[in-house]
């Protein structure tokens, strides 16, 4: 059998051989011109131009210029569309072998109906046609996002209804995105990512354990979307639920993020050179116990002889944190002639983390080529190569965590190098000396990745277009975790783990679209398609212990190795029919048959339908006559769709066997988990409806959407009668729902030649509810406190509470504790209990918080001050989400937190570790805090220099930009950052802060030269 690579190459060869035959001679000319803002005269970049009835088109450059070559001679209708402006079109007469000039002035508007979007995998359509929401983010919003090294970071605050969290402030760190809530329990919850039509891998492989412990799912500090350079993004479209994503079938339960990279434009060559310098620092330090007298923990861990004795304290945070510096350099060259367009780009990114010893570097290069072989045939090729290296440091609940060691160790401990012993003193509590972690541990992650695609678009006659796409995503990720000998204790002999993951994704899509107008006022667009995807993910790990001194590779007396493989394939066929009635009413219906190797043979082929309705009511004569002067435009939309989610285990359909030896012979026994022949996808059904209303002559647009998603057939582990010889089986049994509203208000507040102010205000609320588990009494606990309980939102915090008196106040009881060697009786709170039906008592566990936000809101503003000065401000808020502050809990247990200073002054009840009777260590309620926040996510000021003196450097223009990210956070949360999560992208375990690196404040200065 051929490998995917061989097939891919073969296919390419076949296509190339065919090309000469396909080129047809024709009389053509060129159209070029400039797109400008009608009010300010400022050039408008990224405007989409299209020659009606052909494949021809382009987008305008930063200077607003465009050029379309090979336009058939004669009268041609050219349409221009741009987000934030009214669409327009004009007929241009093209003369053979000549250049015709056509300039366009665009009027600012808040409405977006004319914008072209790719809704799912069908043919691109104007937004007005589509019944479901498709959120679009412009490339400039991504590439200009200050300090964002990854696309998902850059998307923060820009998608209504998305909860985007950076899990850790370490550079190269992972980001998790929830679109319209969480949609699985055992499966993943991250959306599907599609780059230029190719499904890519966004796994977050915890190859080594640096965040949460292995026993809790080994949270990863990175995810693979971080490999893509935001500078190369043209725009991003977000499909938030099943109604929009049905044509992605069985992989789309968590929504789809479609990323489109930049392409070249016909015309003169554009060169852009960008240099950026950035600084980042921690928002704050932990507040530590710096009391001059010893507390309980100091005595227990040898920092002092008795409570109250004078003690020297050490706050090592200034030596751990630093001001990190970063650079981001990017060069792009784009242009096109003779039917060829190209976009070449290269970038080099560096970022020093706010923790010393954390670092990130990325090199990337992209080529996007497109060749118009005739007005009927176009071939494009995209190739992207990326190398990245991140240096992480362990954090979170890892006892080797750097920040962890701060909160676990009393400040009476002096970790500095001891010249007398020639070594760093061992940590008296647990884990290594923090300076040893910082200076001697190694946890690098390197990635080499290739993303490539070939697209062939044919328009054999004017009503039919065919598109074939083949794409690969091929990468190798190597991690390492080195702990030197003697680092954790005098008996530790060192360890090194060196796992490597290889991943290959292959996509193969064929789509045919047929347009017709069988009668006046009725337009039909039919699409049929086929998709094949194949995923291969293999991990091989080598590890060693008993290391030779001063060696950090896998060698030494004890060596182990392991291997695991995950492979799955999907095949899908889809049909979609779109009807446009009288140019105002649009109906869409689609069917997608999707099959996956992970489904049981009895349930292999699954059908996912979709339907949509869009009625541009504002263009109906009766509307115009009645309230047309209030609502300058109005559209009603409704959509329905179903999608699937792959079962969490790719091989749960099989009766698997495990090795068990007997009498020295290798044997096999059936796994106690029974295979399930009829395992099928988790199935989501979503309804959404809403409207887009333009007000004040389209100076304002209100978008409102209500959605209701129900995900059934959630795969859960169901206990079987043990007399079957099995103990459990994965079955499609669970159900959950997400309902919510999304509201966005886009406004052009001021529009004058010297001053324009646009803003966008969004609000989104989602309610998640677990509708059904395997048995109604089930409580699945994930991580520490996050629970899955029927009737509750997913991941609620569930844990021990204080005993309370009749008034609901915390109850106290006399408790004997040892203080300075003497038993003393003090009044202390204690853990609450419940009485069970049989009369016995047990400790009470209650729902004590919910990490899901009540709502999210954003407010973004952009100001144009004259022709040259621009300013933007983005506020990003999350409200009503609880955070489990384990950082504070641990720092109090170990007498490290500032709160413990008052321990024996009568100000507070004793917290510390040793003074922790009455089951206090299992009372969590006081550590659940309101994590609501508003972040000044982005603020930027930029000035455009286009004066003649610039040209002396050969440049057309120069932009200087000063910006900041996460500049300020308004929150009542007591920790450093309410946004981080110990458990990274974990589906259920959310909102846990445990010595997790806070998101830095970043300042950037960049200079862009355009030639």
């Amino acid at each position, binding site marked *: 059998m051929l490998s*995917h690579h061989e097939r891919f190459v073969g296919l390419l060869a*076949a296509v190339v051989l065919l090309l000469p035959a396909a080129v047809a001679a024709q009389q053509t000319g060129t159209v070029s011109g400039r797109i400008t803002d009608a009010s300010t005269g400022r050039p408008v970049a990224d405007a989409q131009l299209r020659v009606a009835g052909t494949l021809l088109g382009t987008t305008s450059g930063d200077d607003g210029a465009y050029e379309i070559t090979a336009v058939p001679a004669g009268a041609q209708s050219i349409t221009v569309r741009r987000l934030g402006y009214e669409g327009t079109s004009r007929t241009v007469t093209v003369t053979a072998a000549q250049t015709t000039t056509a300039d366009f002035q665009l009027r600012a508007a808040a409405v977006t109906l004319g914008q072209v979007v790719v809704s799912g995998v069908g043919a691109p359509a104007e937004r007005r046609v589509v019944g479901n929401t498709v959120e679009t983010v412009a490339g400039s919003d991504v590439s200009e996002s200050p300090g964002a090294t990854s696309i998902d970071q850059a998307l923060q605050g820009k998608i209504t209804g998305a909860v985007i969290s950076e899990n850790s402030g370490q550079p190269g760190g992972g980001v998790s995105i929830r679109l319209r809530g969480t949609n699985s329990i055992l499966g993943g919850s991250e959306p599907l990512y599609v780059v230029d039509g190719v499904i890519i891998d966004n796994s977050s492989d915890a190859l080594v354990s640096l965040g949460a412990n292995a026993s809790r799912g080994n949270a990863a500090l990175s995810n693979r979307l971080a490999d893509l350079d935001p500078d190369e993004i043209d725009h991003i479209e977000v499909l938030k639920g099943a109604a929009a994503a049905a044509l992605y079938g069985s992989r789309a339960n968590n929504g789809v993020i479609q990323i489109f990279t930049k392409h070249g434009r016909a015309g003169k060559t554009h060169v852009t050179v960008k240099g950026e310098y950035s600084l980042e620092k921690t928002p704050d330090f932990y507040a530590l116990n710096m009391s001059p007298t010893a507390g309980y923990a100091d005595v227990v861990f040898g920092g002092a002889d008795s409570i109250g004795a004078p003690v020297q304290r050490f706050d090592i945070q200034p030596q751990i944190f630093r001001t990190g510096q970063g650079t981001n350099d990017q060069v792009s060259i784009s242009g096109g002639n003779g039917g060829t367009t190209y976009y070449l780009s290269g970038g080099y990114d560096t970022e020093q983390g706010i923790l010393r010893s954390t670092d990130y570097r990325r090199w990337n290069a992209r080529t996007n080529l497109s060749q118009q072989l005739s007005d009927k045939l176009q071939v494009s090729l995209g190739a992207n190569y990326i190398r990245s290296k991140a240096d992480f440091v362990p954090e979170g609940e890892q006892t080797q965590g750097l920040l962890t060691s701060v909160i676990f160790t009393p400040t009476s401990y002096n970790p500095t190098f001891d010249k007398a012993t020639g070594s760093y003193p061992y940590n008296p509590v647990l884990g290594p000396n923090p300076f040893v972690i910082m200076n001697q541990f190694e946890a690098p992650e390197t990635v080499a990745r290739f993303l490539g695609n070939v697209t062939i678009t044919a328009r054999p006659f004017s009503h039919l277009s065919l598109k074939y796409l083949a794409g690969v995503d091929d990468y190798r990720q190597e991690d390492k975790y080195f702990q030197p000998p003697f680092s954790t204790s005098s008996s530790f002999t060192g360890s090194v783990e060196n796992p490597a993951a290889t991943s290959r994704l292959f996509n193969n899509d064929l789509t045919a679209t047929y347009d017709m107008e069988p009668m006046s006022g009725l337009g039909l667009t039919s699409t049929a398609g086929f998709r094949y995807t*194949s995923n291969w993910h293999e991990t091989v790990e080598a590890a060693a212990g008993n290391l030779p001194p001063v060696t950090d590779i896998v060698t030494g007396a004890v060596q182990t190795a392991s291997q695991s493989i995950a492979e*799955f394939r999907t095949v899908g066929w889809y049909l979609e029919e779109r009807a446009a009635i009288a140019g105002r009413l649009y109906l869409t219906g689609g069917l997608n048959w999707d099959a996956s190797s992970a489904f049981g043979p009895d349930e292999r082929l699954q059908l996912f339908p979709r339907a949509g309705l869009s009625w541009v009511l504002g263009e109906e004569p009766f509307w115009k006559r009645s309230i047309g002067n209030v609502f300058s435009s109005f559209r009603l939309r409704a959509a329905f769709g179903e999608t699937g989610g792959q079962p969490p285990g790719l091989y749960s359909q099989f009766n698997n066997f495990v090795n*068990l030896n*007997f009498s*020295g012979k290798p044997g096999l026994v059936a796994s106690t988990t029974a295979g399930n022949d009829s395992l099928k996808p988790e199935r989501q059904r979503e309804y959404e409806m809403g409207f887009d209303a333009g007000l004040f002559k389209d100076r304002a647009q209100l978008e409102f959407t209500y959605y209701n998603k129900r995900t059934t057939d959630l795969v859960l582990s169901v*206990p079987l009668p*043990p007399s079957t010889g099995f103990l459990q089986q994965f079955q499609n049994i669970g159900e959950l729902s997400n309902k919510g509203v999304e509201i966005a208000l886009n406004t052009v507040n001021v529009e004058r030649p010297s001053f324009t102010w646009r803003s966008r205000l969004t609000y989104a609320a989602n309610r998640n509810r677990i509708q059904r588990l395997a048995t109604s009494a089930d409580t699945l606990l994930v991580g520490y406190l996050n629970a899955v309980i029927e009737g509750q939102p997913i991941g609620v915090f569930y844990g021990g509470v204080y005993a309370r008196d009749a008034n609901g106040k915390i109850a106290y009881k006399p408790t004997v504790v040892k203080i300075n060697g003497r038993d003393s009786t003090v009044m202390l709170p204690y853990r609450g209990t419940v009485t069970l039906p049989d009369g016995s008592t047990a400790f009470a566990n209650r729902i004590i918080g919910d990490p899901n936000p009540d709502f999210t809101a954003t407010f973004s503003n952009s100001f144009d001050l004259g022709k040259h000065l621009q300013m933007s401000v983005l506020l990003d808020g999350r409200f009503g989400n609880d955070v489990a502050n384990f950082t504070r809990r641990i720092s109090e247990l170990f007498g490290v937190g500032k709160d413990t200073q008052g321990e024996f002054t009568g100000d507070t009840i004793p917290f510390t570790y040793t003074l922790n009777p009455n089951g206090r260590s299992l009372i969590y309620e006081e550590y659940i805090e309101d994590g609501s926040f508003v972040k000044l996510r982005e603020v930027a000021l930029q000035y455009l220099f286009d004066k003649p003196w610039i040209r002396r450097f050969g440049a057309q223009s120069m932009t200087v930009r000063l910006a900041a990210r996460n500049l300020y956070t308004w929150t009542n949360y007591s920790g450093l950052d309410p946004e981080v999560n110990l458990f990274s992208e974990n589906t259920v375990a959310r909102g846990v802060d445990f010595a997790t690196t806070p998101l830095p404040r970043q300042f950037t200065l960049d200079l862009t030269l355009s030639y």
Partner: protein
Amino acid sequence: MPRFMLVTAAARPHWHHAARIVALLGLGLAAAGCNLDLENPNSPPQNEVLSTPDGAFALAVGMQAQFANSIDDYVVTNSLITDEWGTRSRALVSYISLFTGQNIDNSYLVIESPWDNSYQTIRSANTLLANVGTLGFGPALTNQFTALAKLYKAMAFGMLIQQYQSVPIDISVAGPALQPRAVVLDTVLALLQSARTDLGQVTDADIAASRSRLLGAGFDFRNTVNAMLARYQLMAGNYAEAIAAADSVDPNVLSVLSYPIPERNPIEDLAFQLAYVGALKSFVDEAQPGDQRPAYWVDVSAAPLASNPPDSVILPLKKYSDPVNPEPFPLYLPDEMLLIKAEALTRLGQNAQAATLVNDVRTQTSSSVDQPVAGLPALPASALDTQDELLAEIAYERRYELFEQGLRWEDTRRFGAALTTTPTLEFLPVPRSECVTNPSHPCG
């Protein structure tokens, strides 16, 4: 499916170049292949395990491993519930519950594990029996496979009915009904007889030839089948059959489950590594003066161990204690055959012959195999001439010969008043994991 692309393309000749491209793309798709029947690359594929000779050998070894690794589940309950073992201070609450008979919870692992593990062994045996005929083995090998599967299935069921009052037999259906002990015992006997028939078609040379891949070191196939037949015929009250079966067991051969490193004898793990259990001191105290057998099983000279509950007195165990060279665990001890015959003869009224056998056991001073010897004087005929006297004496001999072999609980049922001890539980409850999932036996 790729073919449909080709046909569509060819049917419209006016598509010109585009048609050629589409046709080529169709070919490309065909080459891409759409096989969705992937196997799990991380685990042996089920069709190969079930349909290849290698898979069958591996399953047969795995079945024996399941039984050998769960021998402690059988011994723990039976020894703690009777007067053999006590619980040490570190023991889990569930072990103490078995020992005291108090606060039994049917979700305890000690209640669930014997059930779970026996049925996993039975499932493996069923899988082998269903598939071994299709592998193209010769009759000698096929018969060994079927005999082995029937033997282990019978032993697993035999263990189950000593612990639970009623258990399912047919596990191929979901939610099988529980069957009374007598019915299950008939199944056990039928399986063992069938195993013996299968083995009858196999020569010793055949067994020797397949030993290296199929059988454990120290396992004696024929003697084990006969010994189990003797044990369960006696339990069923088929005394003549029990005597006949016991007679065909070679007294100079031991048949064991062996645990070469890195495998572990589960009793060693439980008693010495985890240190959950010890021997009740009463086992030593109640031995007849001069009986050498307590010292075989128990460290009689050691100081009593801290026990939980504290009112019991326990001593360290001695047998199966070696973690470096794990000791094998016997499937039966040859002296059990003498005692089976003695008991069967007694119950048939042939007291004189029974008395001879009892004295044979009492007066042993050495054994050619690893089993305890009493070194006691023979009892006078007058002390063994009534059925009551004989049964009491046989019960005594069984207590000291067959300590911690998991047989004493059943002895308390068979001997009744001839024993002075009462087990703390009559039977184990049906495990919670079974009664909540098996609709034919809801939790009571």
